[in-house]
């Protein structure tokens, strides 16, 4: 009985301590979730450490904010629920700002703005789809006449997408009547299925593909059709933060504004993407 009482007391003490810690929000330690598998945005190095455009930018920002930043890796599809449940404080995973997501979470200022693009097999019939090598800007993700030529070219084909990305509504709205759409948990998985011929096309971030193409297995992958940018993907990619943590958003925004002004964002962008994605 006494033992039970002690255990209960200890547990109460631990719980009490935890509550106290959670209550005091003067932000010394921030937990940031990333996928660690979306090169060059974020990647896991062979020794297990996380690197890439976002982690390097984050380290720079955390220095400016004088915060201790703890990066954890987890699957993309559980990230927003994890943020809402308080398991993490910040999402950093090429997260595009959208109205739908704004209902659930808040965003910092964007730190990148990148186009999306179709990719197919270099040796296949879809390698030079209409509009290849051009850039177009779309205002929204609804069906648009500028996709008419591509719709014709992709009739009866299968398109692979990473689930729950900004690209999903655009591709579904424009191609669902002509093509079959398959959803994958990670971008690497749609790449495998493209290479093995299970699907004919994938659609994803152009900067993601620059890194994916560099892998020996993906040597036959090529961009096809126009690079698609503009307001369709929203203002750009930003950190996702809980709605009630406005103070944290303020800290990040101040640091981001500084880093954009002094050219840090541009330098890191050129280092990782070989192009300037500063919004």
């Amino acid at each position, binding site marked *: 009985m006494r033992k039970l009482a002690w255990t209960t007391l200890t547990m109460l003490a631990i719980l009490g301590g935890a509550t106290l810690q959670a209550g005091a929000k003067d932000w010394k330690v921030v937990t940031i979730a990333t996928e660690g598998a979306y090169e060059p945005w974020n990647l896991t190095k062979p020794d297990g450490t996380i690197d890439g455009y976002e982690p390097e930018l984050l380290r720079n920002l955390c220095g400016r904010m004088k915060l201790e930043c703890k990066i954890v890796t987890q699957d993309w*599809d559980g990230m*927003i*629920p994890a943020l*809402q*449940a308080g398991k993490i404080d910040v999402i950093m995973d090429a997260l595009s700002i959208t109205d*739908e*997501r704004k*209902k*659930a*979470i808040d965003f910092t200022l964007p730190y990148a703005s990148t186009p999306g693009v179709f990719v197919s097999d270099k040796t296949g019939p879809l390698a030079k789809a209409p509009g290849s090598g051009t850039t177009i800007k779309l205002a929204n993700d609804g069906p648009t006449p500028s996709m008419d030529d591509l719709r014709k070219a992709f009739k009866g084909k299968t398109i692979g997408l990473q*689930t*729950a990305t900004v690209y999903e509504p655009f591709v579904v709205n424009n191609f669902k009547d002509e093509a079959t759409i*398959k*959803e*994958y*948990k990670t971008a690497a*998985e749609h790449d*495998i*299925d493209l290479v*093995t*011929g*299970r699907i004919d096309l994938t659609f994803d971030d152009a900067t993601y593909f620059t890194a994916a193409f560099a892998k020996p297995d993906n040597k036959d992958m090529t961009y096809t059709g126009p690079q698609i940018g503009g307001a369709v993907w929203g203002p750009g990619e930003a950190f996702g933060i809980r709605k009630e943590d406005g103070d944290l958003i303020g800290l990040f925004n101040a640091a981001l504004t500084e880093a954009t002004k002094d050219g840090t964002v541009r330098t890191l962008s050129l280092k990782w993407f070989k192009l300037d994605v500063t919004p």
Partner: protein
Amino acid sequence: MGLDLPFLFDTLRQLLAALPVTLALFVLSISFGAVLALGLTAMRLSGIGILDRLARAYVFVFRGSPLLIQMFFVYYGLAQFPAVRHGPLWPVLRDPFACAVIALALCTAGYATEIFRGAILAIPHQQVEAARAAGMSGWLLLRRMILPIGLRQALPAYSTELILMVKSTSLASVITVIEVSGVAQHIIAQTYRTMEVFLCAAMIYLVVNFTIARLVALLEHALTPHLRGQPLSVIAAAAAVPVERAALH
């Protein structure tokens, strides 16, 4: 968290639309898996060293490794080999649904083999000897004695395996098969309402598994008339018969 009934109904409707896929995955993989397991059980009990070893190795691999990894191997792993992509089996292995059925069947066969083996070994020796004394052997012995009694004894453990398999079908969503939990994750990705959607999905799995458990219990009841207490009316009727006639029975 307020209760949003229209959202719950809409979620349930979308999830139920995917239920046929979940059930098809289950029925097909259990069917193939059970046949495979019967073969493996026969190998295990054959008394022939090499067959026994092969079956043991199979059980070791498929029972000992995670189903998720087996599924990745069947779907993504095999496709890495050009020989597979240009081989005769590619039309089957290209299809995620077929890959999911193959992985699920291979895995359940490993578990079912051990369940079947245990059930057959548990058949009392006296009963087998009695059957042999009555002139049964070979297929007749197998058909009349070993299979019916073995099946009956395997049912309690096998029903657990069936229920585990219903839940395992949810892994098929990782290789792009759109079944109940895959749809659930898709809805969550769009609405960010984790709890409500997963609750609806869990309810569907509960109802399916309850039905399966009841069906197996019915089958078990039907197969074990000799283990049930006699109805009171029968006992009363027996008591009413004169002693010498009852003894003749």
